[in-house]
């Protein structure tokens, strides 16, 4: 099945939309592309849309935490949205919601970052 990744920008926000399955195999490529997208577009914040992510394990948590640290260094914020109950359980277990904000949808996430 694999993972599909889509990067879009809106002002100083990088929108990352993931669909498919995020495991260790997919996480290494995702990390590279994501780091490149942050650099190329000179963005400050990240919105992570997980609406179409059908599977994830702890490798996903590792990649998200890694990008959060990089974005934080740039003075930015990371917001996750449209998360499934299964993925939410993993976020809850790891305490990731203490640092990555949860919003219902992409629109709310953009509002929260001051981009209308």
């Amino acid at each position, binding site marked *: 099945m694999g993972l599909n990744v889509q990067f879009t920008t809106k002002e100083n926000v990088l929108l990352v939309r993931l669909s498919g399955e995020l495991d*260790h195999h997919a996480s290494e490529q995702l990390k590279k592309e994501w780091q490149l997208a942050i650099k190329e577009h000179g963005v400050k914040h990240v919105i992570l849309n997980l609406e179409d992510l059908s599977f994830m394990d702890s490798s996903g*948590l*590792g990649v998200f935490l890694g990008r959060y640290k990089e974005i934080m260094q740039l003075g930015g914020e990371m917001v996750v949205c449209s998360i499934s109950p299964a993925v939410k359980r993993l976020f809850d277990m790891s305490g990731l919601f203490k640092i990555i904000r949860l919003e219902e949808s992409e629109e709310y996430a953009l509002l929260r970052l001051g981009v209308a």
Partner: protein
Amino acid sequence: MKNKMNLDFSSVSSNEAFARVAVASFVTQLDPTMDELTELKTVVSEAVTNSIIHGYDNQPDQTIYISCTLEEDAIELIIKDEGVGIADIDEAVQPLYTSKPELERSGMGFTIMENFMDKVDVVSHPGEGTMVKLYKQLKKSKTLCN
């Protein structure tokens, strides 16, 4: 009656998806819920990933072994490697503990296995490899009420 399945495959990361789908399709015979299936796929993914990254230090020419036994509504899963082994198991299973932070590991693999399964046993010796035994009793409420 016991119903058993064995699988062995190379320690390459593209087999992580194969392993969780293979176990899920074997377990489907017991008519698990979607949540139970997701939990099983996740723990298989965690244990197989650990064998690849930690057990075999990403060497692709090694072998990972899975055995899955179904009895009534109970599942026993054994995931095994012949890799480096774990010196301190109590430390390894702590939430957020990872020996490879440079690889962006979250240290949540064992915590997820413990949360998603009824019981997790880790047998490991340095230089000999690691065996993770996972047990789960499926809920049988689905067909009871008709």
